[in-house]
């Protein structure tokens, strides 16, 4: 199996690469369209701002490449937000493969960023759900995707927001599975085990 981590030029790529190694997979870090298209699984990491990340993807001419991928794609943290149609962080159009919007978290007086371990709740029962409700995952973010029909897991900090989203072959995790202990490792392994049939369901 070949796994490509898209080199978004602003992400902490090594921690994702090392987490996949702990799952027994040597991933390729690349911004090459041919490598990305040929991969069995694609991971879109992201650290930084939506505006900077989209600018990099445009410069690398990867926007259409990612939009048209057919294999399972996992966006992590900012990478998940990039899968949505738009982000308030820089008022920027994103990849628009999952119809949802990314807004600033509304938390009242709670500290931001939302940083630390928070619980995952499942939405529905018939979807890919690689965790147990109540499992803790590690989050670091100030913007979040609003819940809608494409939400498969939620978490709560000041407001309820989408912790995981999915549409077809595109998956997103707002938290960092690569830094979420055994829970995160299980989620990464489940993603690596997805088949073409799973993503068509």
């Amino acid at each position: 199996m070949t796994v490509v981590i898209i080199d978004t030029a602003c992400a902490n790529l090594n921690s994702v690469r090392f987490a996949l190694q702990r799952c027994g997979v040597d991933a390729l870090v690349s911004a090459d369209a041919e490598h990305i298209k040929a991969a069995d699984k694609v991971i879109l990491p992201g650290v930084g701002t939506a505006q900077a990340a989209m600018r990099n993807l445009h410069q690398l001419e990867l926007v259409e490449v990612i939009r048209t991928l057919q294999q399972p794609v996992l966006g992590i943290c900012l990478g998940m937000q990039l899968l949505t149609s738009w982000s308030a962080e820089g008022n920027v159009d994103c990849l628009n493969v999952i119809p949802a919007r990314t807004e600033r978290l509304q938390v009242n007086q709670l500290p931001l960023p939302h940083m630390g371990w928070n619980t995952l709740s499942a939405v529905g029962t018939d979807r890919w759900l690689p965790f147990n409700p109540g499992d803790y995952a590690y989050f670091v973010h100030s913007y979040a995707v609003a819940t809608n029909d494409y939400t498969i897991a939620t978490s709560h900090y000041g407001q309820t927001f989408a912790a995981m989203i999915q549409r077809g072959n595109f998956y997103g995790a707002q938290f960092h599975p690569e830094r979420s202990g055994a829970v995160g490792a299980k989620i990464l392994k489940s993603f690596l085990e997805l088949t073409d049939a799973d993503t068509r369901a």
Partner: protein
Amino acid sequence: MLARRIIPCLDVRHGEVVKGVQFRNHQVIGAIEPLAASYAAAGADELVFYDITASSDARVVDKSWVERIARLIDIPFTVAGGISSIAQAREILAMGADKISINSPALRDPELINRLVDEFGQQCIVIGIDSYFNADNGHYEVFQFTGDENRTQKTRWQTADWLREVVTRGAGEIVLNCMNQDGVRQGYDIEQLRQLRPICPVPLIASGGAGTMQHFANVFTEAAVDGALAASVFHRGVIDIGELKGYLAQQHIAIRPLTTKVL
């Protein structure tokens, strides 16, 4: 619900974990990787590695251990000490650290905070503040170069003013080290932390003074900090992290329970 974080801090000198009392008299405890792995397995929510020689010592410090940690552990970790430029920050983050923590270099050049936040994002820029309660004037005063007792010196900043300054410049998290309490295990500085909590809009981590499990419960319930950092009680086996988490759960404090392998 967001869990309160338990954060062991490992002081690193020349690639080994050391421990001192009130920032002095450092003794070698052991190699970094096995200690890091055992804390992660024991239920630590996050680790901080503080290179104590670096900030007060201009030499280039070998940081290759950062990548070895990143390969090994599956919880977030912060590297502190000796980071005073964009290039150094980039190197540490590229090796796999989740956050970098800046202390003395930010006091020397506060604009550094803005540059780091612009370059890498708020979420990975932690500011460490060494705060000393001056009983003579009743002020909390910020100190720098605390890694080296010969160079430790008071700055012109009072702690509340410096805290406001660094969050205005974009700091994503604050670690407040209360120097009077450090290493003496008499409890966190609840009074100081409670004063600073309302003016800290980002996560606030308490550091210095943990001696008993009750101290952790107190700092979470009375000062509403997001995390509690400690070193000696964990290194010396005074407190077991799993037991601590069980105790805090009994006190109805939100914590991430210690889980054995879920696969």
